[in-house]
């Protein structure tokens, strides 16, 4: 594996006086896909929001550091953070449709995001986007560009969300349950696209999910969280095939498995 580009060091996050995540450490290397699993409320989202600086007014990283390329991204100015967000660390939301402004076209918003990080003309932005759409096997890129979020299906929105996050070509991508708002049939496409991304650009990805099937399909490493604490962390095969922690075992045994003879 290549060099490490993101490291969480004994991170503790609190909302108000309540500690929600405590003493979590892990690191992410270039091109690595990390699966973040755990039950609802275990602090998965909190963990990635901490790096993005999106904890809101009452949330705060109370202990530890988050290092992006050796730079502690918790103690930098808002302006510097803004430079990192989007350009260095992209993010895909659970419901990408909702993370887009409902009354502006996808194109406008793509252009706006790109403008936030470099000088670029609208047509350049559009060309870039079209290129990427093509790489991501988007059928009708032009239509997407001119559409409002509500005119697209959930799956298309989600893919548009991925595209926007990818356009700046960030070395790191956070994906917070990128598929759970989607139909089972679309899920697969989205996952494939994310894998495709890594192939194309060598992007490192942290994917938050509670679907162990997804983790199995794409993650290199897995971090299991329970009540804001790390219960298991290691190579995906190792954790999934030979879980050490009782909780991980329970989690794995609870996953219903489809029985079928022929694998397609």
């Amino acid at each position: 594996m290549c060099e490490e580009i993101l490291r969480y060091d004994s991170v503790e996050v609190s909302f108000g006086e309540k500690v929600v995540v405590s003493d979590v450490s892990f690191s992410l290397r270039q091109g690595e896909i990390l699966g973040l699993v755990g039950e609802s409320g275990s602090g998965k989202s909190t963990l990635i929001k901490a790096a993005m600086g999106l904890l809101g007014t009452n949330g705060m990283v109370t202990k530890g550091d988050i290092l992006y390329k050796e730079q502690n991204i918790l103690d930098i100015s808002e302006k510097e953070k803004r430079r990192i967000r989007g350009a260095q660390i992209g993010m895909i939301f659970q419901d990408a449709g909702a993370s887009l402004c409902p009354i502006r076209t996808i194109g406008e918003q793509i252009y706006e995001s790109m403008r936030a990080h470099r000088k670029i003309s609208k047509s350049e932005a559009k060309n870039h986007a079209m290129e990427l759409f093509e790489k991501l096997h988007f059928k009708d890129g032009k239509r997407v560009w001119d559409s409002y979020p509500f005119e697209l299906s959930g799956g298309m929105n989600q893919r548009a969300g991925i595209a926007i996050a990818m356009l700046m070509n960030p070395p790191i991508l956070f994906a917070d349950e990128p598929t759970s708002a989607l139909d089972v049939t679309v899920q697969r496409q989205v996952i494939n696209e994310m894998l495709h991304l890594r192939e194309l650009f060598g992007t490192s990805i942290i994917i938050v999910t509670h679907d162990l099937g997804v983790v199995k399909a794409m993650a290199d490493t897995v971090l299991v969280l329970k009540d804001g604490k790390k219960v298991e962390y290691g190579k995906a095969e190792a954790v999934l095939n030979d879980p050490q922690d009782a909780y991980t075992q329970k989690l794995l045994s609870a996953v219903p498995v489809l029985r079928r003879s022929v694998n397609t």
Partner: protein
Amino acid sequence: MSIILEAEHLTKIFRKKGSAPLKAVDDISFQLKAGETLGIVGESGSGKSTLAKLLTRLTDPTSGTLKYEGKDITMLKGNGLRELYGNMQMVFQDPVSSFDPRRTLGDGIGESLRNRGMKKEEIQKRVEEVLEQAGLDPRFAARYPHEVSGGQCQRAAIARALAVEPKILICDEATSALDVTIQKQIMELLQELKEQHGLSFIFICHNLALVQMFCDRVLVLYEGRIVESGTPDEIIQSPGEVYTKKLIESVFE
């Protein structure tokens, strides 16, 4: 086995000003036998919830008939409907929002009993009974929905459905809002109920694995129509429709 619930050509069309009418449920016919578990799968928007609401008479069908034990209940109103609900109950997807936030779980569970004119002490006894049946401590009766976890709340919802000793239980994605570990517990509870009480189930779900595990028969819904039906194994092993194939292929393992 006798047919307990029968749908004939059920159709529900939503008309909205300014857009084409939407056939959310399109000419659906099926039969549910006593003690049978019928799974319904399909992607989001395929009309599963609308079908569930039609079956429970929470919405009126645009056309078609619905029969319970051979009796036409399509147009049932008032007391007749209330009687029907003594035999047919439903468990909803989101457990917490299926309880009135301002009332205790016990209150919600006892509501149907109170409406049937049962006395206070009896109600209390029955509530405790069904809570235990659903695997909850009777003290949960005094809690508010936001004071319990999702899994506990769903158990209470099941207890509520069981309170009137229904013959049919309709579950509309009763586990998809829950974590896998809790989902497993709930599925075990349903399995137990099925075995011990001989309930008939309509189990709406988009998780094929769960359906395979739990159901006797499956209907695959697509754009409001039944595109395929059969035993879970038949459908999963050799899907006949393109759509069903796609559905199965998308499952990660």
